[in-house]
């Protein structure tokens, strides 16, 4: 293969794999009965999913009066969770789209699972704007449709409506991107299976044959979808930040929000990918496909984006002081030293200070450190949204309406419930589809497999010339 491989690049696929071995390793977990760890995890996440259904039903039945929102604190845990989940849902498309455009080969090991995670995270995120409307059965009012009230249209100038369009577009495009990538791999599963499984995978693989022309179109489609998704993923969190930035609330009304939110989204998304990948590679025995090199690369992204977020926090503080505007200054004074000081400390410690350990290569390549850090970052990013939303609203212009917001059991239940929804969906995904993109990994085997780029590459090279000579000789 006429690929130029730098000898200093570490292999991305270990274990001297053949094409068949790759198929076998990645597809077989879907064909065997689940192991005990999976069953345990699934049971646990189903219980949390049950909690989700219960608390949502409770909210719909009794109304959002069951939450501790009030006149000034109109957004609490609901929107905090929404922004948190949407942020997590950014890593998949970033990995699959932006890294595809930058020709980063390490994306192939993790892109499939990261995209799936993205879709599930966006589904979790989408629950909150829907249920926080109070009357869920009228949720379709957010779409512009011809109605008998005029027709009265939605407000196209409102960032909340832009959000509706941004998130539904993001969800749709992510699903399309993920599923078209999945089709050839589902065909692989189809061709390996028999009976009812074969029938099912036949339905879901759309009749894929692997013809040269189809692959050519497939690659063209992936490239353009990647090109579309790249500005899309940046636009989504930008628009989420507009929900805050276009308001006239001190602490929200800042122009730094779009880039700061996008960096934070990538940061938290990669952390969630790390959490999931570290478990998945272990449980499904995919250590040779999701290697330390992958973990190292993702930790570098976490370090960079975490530092960007840190710079944004400090910039906010500086600008608040520099603005000379009393209310803005108070909003930030209150964030750092007000009644919610603990959440600001949590945010700073988890998002800015702790990721700095990743300057050390040894820590970047340590599974234990990476796992602990990924949890830290997830917690820190949740605090960030809580800091922005709750602390700001709890101390508004009128001291007479100041209060201290604590969630009710219903709000906590809904949040824990979305974790259940997320993990249940992800666990089902690991059972029905290959968690690593089979065809894509095969296509980089010769450019990044250890028998071609590792220490024993020379031996294989010899074998290669032998094949060429044999072909030529005939």
């Amino acid at each position, binding site marked *: *293969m*006429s*690929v130029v491989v730098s000898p200093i690049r570490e292999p991305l696929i270990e274990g001297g794999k*053949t*094409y*068949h071995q790759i*198929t076998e390793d990645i597809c077989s977990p879907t064909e065997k009965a689940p192991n005990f760890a999976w069953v345990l995890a699934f049971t646990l996440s189903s219980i949390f999913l049950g909690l989700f259904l219960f608390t949502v039903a409770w909210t719909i039945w009794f109304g959002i009066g069951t939450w501790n929102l009030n006149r000034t604190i109109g957004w609490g845990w609901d929107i905090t969770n929404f922004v948190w989940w949407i942020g997590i849902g950014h890593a998949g498309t970033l990995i699959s789209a932006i890294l595809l455009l930058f020709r980063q080969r390490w994306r192939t090991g993790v892109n499939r699972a990261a995209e799936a995670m993205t879709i599930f995270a966006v589904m979790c995120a989408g629950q909150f704007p829907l249920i926080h409307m109070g009357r869920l059965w009228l949720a379709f009012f957010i779409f*512009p449709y011809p109605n008998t009230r005029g*027709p*009265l*249209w939605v*407000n*196209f*100038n*409102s960032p909340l*409506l*832009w959000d509706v*369009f*941004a998130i539904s*577009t993001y969800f*749709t*495009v992510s699903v*399309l*991107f993920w599923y*078209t990538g999945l089709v*050839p791999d589902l065909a*692989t599963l189809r*061709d*390996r299976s028999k009976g009812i499984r074969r029938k099912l995978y*036949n*339905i879901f693989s*759309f*009749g894929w*044959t*692997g*013809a*040269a*022309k*189809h*692959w*050519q*179109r*497939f690659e*063209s*489609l992936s*490239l*353009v*979808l990647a090109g*579309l*998704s790249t*500005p*899309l993923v940046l636009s989504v969190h930008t628009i989420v930040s507009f929900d805050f930035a276009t308001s006239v609330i001190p602490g929200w009304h800042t122009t730094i929000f779009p880039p700061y939110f996008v960096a934070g989204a990538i940061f938290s998304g990669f952390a969630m990918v790390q959490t999931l990948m570290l478990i998945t590679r272990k449980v499904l025995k995919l250590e040779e496909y999701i290697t330390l090199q992958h973990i190292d690369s993702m930790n570098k992204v976490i370090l960079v984006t975490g530092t960007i977020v840190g710079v944004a926090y400090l910039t906010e503080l500086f600008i608040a002081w520099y603005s000379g505007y009393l209310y803005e200054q108070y909003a930030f004074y209150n964030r750092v030293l007000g009644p919610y000081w603990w959440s600001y400390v949590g945010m700073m410690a988890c998002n800015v200070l702790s990721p700095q350990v990743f300057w050390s290569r040894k820590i970047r390549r340590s599974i234990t450190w990476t796992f602990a850090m990924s949890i830290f970052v997830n917690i820190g990013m949740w605090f960030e949204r809580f800091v922005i939303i709750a602390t700001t609203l709890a101390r508004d212009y009128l001291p007479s309406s100041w209060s201290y917001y604590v969630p009710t059991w219903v709000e906590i239940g809904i949040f824990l419930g979305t974790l259940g929804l997320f993990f249940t969906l992800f666990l089902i995904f690991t059972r029905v589809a290959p968690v690593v993109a089979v*065809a*894509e990994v*095969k*296509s980089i085997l010769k450019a990044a497999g250890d028998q071609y780029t590792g220490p024993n590459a020379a031996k294989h090279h010899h074998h*290669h010339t032998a*094949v060429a000579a044999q*072909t030529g000789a*005939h």
Partner: protein
Amino acid sequence: MKQEKEVLYGLYDDEEILLGAVKAAKAEHLEIMDVFTPFPVHGLDEALELEESRLHIAGFIYGAIGTLTAFLFMTWVFTRDWPIIFGGKPYWSVPAFIPITFELTVLFSAIGMTVSFFTVCGMAPGRTNPTLDDRITDDKFCIAFDAAGAGEDMLNRLRSFFSQTGASEVHLKTI
């Protein structure tokens, strides 16, 4: 309606051998019916002299339709159908229309391209297209020739082509 086809195909174990074989077939002026691979093989398009896909052009057109739909619709709503003043801004507040216009451009383009892709490839949920060998989606690389109406001479010539270019298996199959 499906037509039965008789196909002579050879399976190769490596994409480099396959590429060599495709080039050899072109040199010998053998008409390849199709080539099937487990993953996109770099350089195969050129070797088969496939025309560039026009899918991205379709994507651009779908996107442009999305842009116009979103922008013209919002313009119509806020200047003709029901003009409302929001925050003292002009009715036709173009900057505020940009986010939705952008989102719909992406949405139309992505949906349009994906649907077009599956349609032109003859794929749909539940569709069964005939496949030659189950291992083509695993680790075999396949060159197929149309054997319908091919005489014994032609079949022998193809068989010897396969053995010369390093095919590991050769089969005749009606699909």
